[in-house]
């Protein structure tokens, strides 16, 4: 069974989606990522979708699920590199990527994740 590689970079997990995904592959990615987050205690997930020429409601739901499950496990999700035509289409379709942050490219996505985690760590929430 094909799988999309997940790279570990310190506190973060990095996934680059290279092709338009078959559904089974997208579902595998969702469960693989969630397992990796729990196994590694990663604080951030970065998903590069610059190679995706379309995002329909199915793919949108998978991305949203990754975001909300990761959140429960204390990791933030950033989606980077969305093509402009895809972004325009998503809005008209009516799909909101709830629970995930978006950034223009991998660098900015990394930056965003680092900021999010720093803010969290500097908030004194324990006695």
């Amino acid at each position: 069974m094909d799988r999309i590689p997940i790279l570990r970079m310190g506190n973060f997990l990095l996934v680059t989606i290279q092709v338009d995904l078959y559904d089974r592959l997208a579902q595998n990615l969702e469960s693989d990522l969630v397992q990796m987050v729990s196994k590694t205690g990663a604080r951030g997930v970065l998903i590069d979708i610059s190679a995706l020429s379309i995002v329909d409601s199915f793919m949108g739901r998978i991305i949203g699920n990754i975001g909300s499950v990761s959140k429960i496990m204390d990791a933030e999700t950033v989606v980077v590199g969305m093509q402009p035509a895809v972004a325009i289409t998503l809005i008209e379709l009516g799909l909101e990527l709830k629970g995930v942050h978006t950034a223009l490219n991998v660098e900015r996505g990394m930056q965003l994740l680092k900021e999010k985690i720093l803010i969290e760590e500097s908030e004194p929430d324990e006695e």
Partner: protein
Amino acid sequence: MYIVLNKDRMVIEKEQDVVPYRNRVKEFAVKIGMSLVNQTKLITAASELVRNMLKYANGGVTTIEVISKGRENGIRLIFEDKGPGIADIKLAMKDGFSTGKSLGLGLPGAKRLSSEFDIKSTVGKGTTVTLIKWKNG
């Protein structure tokens, strides 16, 4: 009325048919010189409708056509299935309505992404959706 310039049919019966189908639609859209944004809208709408066919009707048949009306060229897609049909089309076309525990965006979203959109359904017989995306529409 419309003149059909070119036509193709594809049977959709499994999840693995979705990506090749989308690629075929893209080939047609590229051939008539449709802009990237309109291509993306068309293919996304098409993806929603084949998914519905698979999920609710166990598949069906799609037709891809290059059509022309006056000076305007476009792509017409027809999705025919022999599934359970839709009892209340008005309700099914509402944002957020889903019998499949999903987002309920497919039908209303596909309509917004299309230049023209038509849905006909008979309970117990099946559903036919037709949409047109004009090259510059």
